[in-house]
């Protein structure tokens, strides 16, 4: 508004007088200021909000993590990196990290592969195309809590549907919650069910941008549908794949509601099973922040460590995906 009206006004004055208008030093300075400062003012709301709700909590968490800071007591002694050293020497932390990475791998890899295949199928001419495309998104719309509750029942030991099917097929029952691997599979299924469709739609959008002619010539050359997918589509939509891998990684490393509800309302929901067999990093954080000690200092250290882990894993994933690109 003010940005373009003022230059226009100045121009008009120049035209009327026939020579450059003498602009008062005060007005001139104001004009310069407007030109320089206004753009910053326009983007300021975003940065103000980001500072208040993003940067400040981040910095404050770092500050808290260097204190013996319990919600229950008023004394908050500075302890330096003690929380971090305690954290790194706690076997339960490494256990939680291993569980998180395992659940991440079990959920993300099959999920993205399935999403790719689904998206590929959706590019074909189908009857009721919109119906299928919208249907993809339904699981994602469902509340994560509802998904976790229902899947926990499906994976129930005694009366769960999955075990019922396994048994009627002649296979034995599985106590999904007790085993480390079985509990990870159950949780990974919940995550995959919720996010596969979402990723499929993102891939689908990217695939729309791949020129048809390439497929047509490939078809003429006798390439099969599957070959087209892996030889043409995948290389063409690689930036999108990188994006989904990184977003899924970030989400997967922070997974919380699924294991928490899978563990039930008792102490197992906090420790991720009685042997901590499916305690994720966020559950570990929750155990320390919102449980007996309300140790916010320690929990903040966990949060910062998680942040570092997420950045690291996302970076590794990025490098990994990029390698594949340059290889082909």
């Amino acid at each position, binding site marked *: 508004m003010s940005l373009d009206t003022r230059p226009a006004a100045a121009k008009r004055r120049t035209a009327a007088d026939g020579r450059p208008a003498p602009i008062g030093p005060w007005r001139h300075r104001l004009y310069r200021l407007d030109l320089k400062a206004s753009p910053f003012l326009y983007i300021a709301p975003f940065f103000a909000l980001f500072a208040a709700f993003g940067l400040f909590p981040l910095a404050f968490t770092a500050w808290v993590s260097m204190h013996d800071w319990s*919600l*229950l007591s008023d004394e908050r002694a500075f302890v330096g990196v003690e929380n971090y050293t305690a954290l790194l020497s706690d076997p339960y932390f490494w256990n939680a990290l291993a569980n998180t990475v395992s659940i991440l791998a079990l959920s993300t890899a099959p999920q993205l592969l399935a999403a790719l295949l689904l998206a590929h199928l959706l590019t074909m001419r189908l009857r009721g195309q919109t119906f299928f495309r919208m249907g993809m998104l339904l699981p994602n719309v469902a509340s994560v809590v509802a998904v976790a509750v229902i899947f*926990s*029942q499906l994976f*129930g*030991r*005694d*009366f769960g549907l999955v075990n019922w099917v396994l048994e009627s097929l002649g296979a034995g029952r599985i*106590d999904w919650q*007790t085993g480390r691997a079985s509990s990870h599979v159950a949780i990974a299924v919940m995550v995959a069910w919720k996010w596969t469709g979402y990723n499929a739609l993102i891939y689908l959008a990217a695939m729309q941008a791949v020129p048809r002619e390439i497929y047509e010539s490939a078809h003429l050359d006798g390439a099969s549908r599957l070959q087209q997918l892996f030889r043409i589509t995948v290389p063409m939509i690689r930036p999108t794949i990188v994006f989904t891998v990184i977003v899924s990684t970030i989400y997967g490393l922070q997974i919380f509601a699924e294991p928490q509800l899978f563990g*039930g*309302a*008792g*102490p*197992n*929901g*906090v*420790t991720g099973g*009685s*042997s901590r*067999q499916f305690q994720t990093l966020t559950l570990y954080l929750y155990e320390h922040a*919102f*449980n*007996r*000690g*309300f140790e916010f200092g320690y929990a903040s250290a966990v949060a910062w460590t998680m942040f570092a882990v997420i950045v690291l894993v996302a970076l590794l994933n990025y490098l990994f995906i990029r390698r594949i690109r340059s290889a082909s």
Partner: protein
Amino acid sequence: MSSKSLRAALAAGTATVLVAAGAACSDADDGTVTLTVGLFGDFGFGPLYEEYMETHPDIEIEERISEFADHHTNLTTHLATGSGAADIEAVEVGYVSQYTASPDRFHDLLDLGADELEGQWLDWKWQQALSGDGEALIGLGTDVGGMAMCYRRDLFEAAGLPVERDEVSALWAESWADYVAVGHQYMDATDGTYFFESSGNMFRAQVEQAEQGVYDREGSIVVDSNPAVGEAWDLTVEAIEAGMSNGLEAYTPEWNASFSEGTFATIICPAWMTTYIETNAPDAAGLWDIASVPGGAGNMGGSHLVLPAQGEHAEEAYELIEWLTAPEQQLKVFEQTGNFPSTPELYEDPALTGMTKPYFNDAPVGEIFTGAAQAVEPQYQGPLQGDVLATLGQGLGRIEDGSQSPEDAWSQVLSDLESF
């Protein structure tokens, strides 16, 4: 938009927000006071609120119910941050000592009129809500959980065991060892069902009965040194190894379903548990019955109503909880939900002692739970009572699901407790 009209619009918007916020948190202009009540599960107060609001037209009551574990976590957070708590909050006995340790976060009920009512509750129930120095009272008792043992008549019959409640009580009248012996008999005679639902509950019941539990009077954890805890652990491990436990975790869908499926024969039954059984297995009426618990009496569960200091309507809230916990109202709650009163005055009232439950084969619940509540020897409860018991329960769970040997489970429990 000119800056003037923008400013006017902003001002109007801000004013609207402020007015709306004001209306949301303050009370209406006509002088009515809204009291919020934060509970875990249904306390059966619904009809009582109606009754109270009829006689107190200036009071509005709003109930918020959350899950058991969430409830206490949220309450602690709200107390620590100084906002968000309801005017009236329920606190379960496993957590009450954690709160009596910081009495300044609550209104002192002795100042509000509770000092005249001391004799109304069971002595130990009153003590539980007193601060360490005995100077302040943070809560008034609602129910107590005098223990009994619920059992399935049909499963006992199939196992060739006695079915009538007096005979069943006599089977394990002496001790928990007798109970486990009956369990061996049961397991030998039957196939496909279990003797009890979860080892954690059996263990907890034994510990609650002991003179000293997981804490000593000085407030240190004595799990390792208290022989009563060790004996309870060993006996529970024996039962687990004989395959008596169904390995269910309380309040999970599996646990709920098991009551009607009849997968286990006995469960420790404080008065409030009878309600769970009735609601989870409406079809099993007449199949369940109630006998006495092994090893004499003991208390498991029960609650207090407390007033967080951040609440602004201390007097109105106190008046309500005094009324809710008065004997007449506790009797009504018992009739409705089975939560057993904590006021001894009722224990001679035929309205209570004569009460039977048709669901439990007309078991004289009034008489059974009166006896159980009166025989309770109070036990000192430490600040992290609930968490210590949960850690022990998880240790037993690891033996139950086969992921650890009893020795490893015990040493992990001890090392976990070190960090408390």
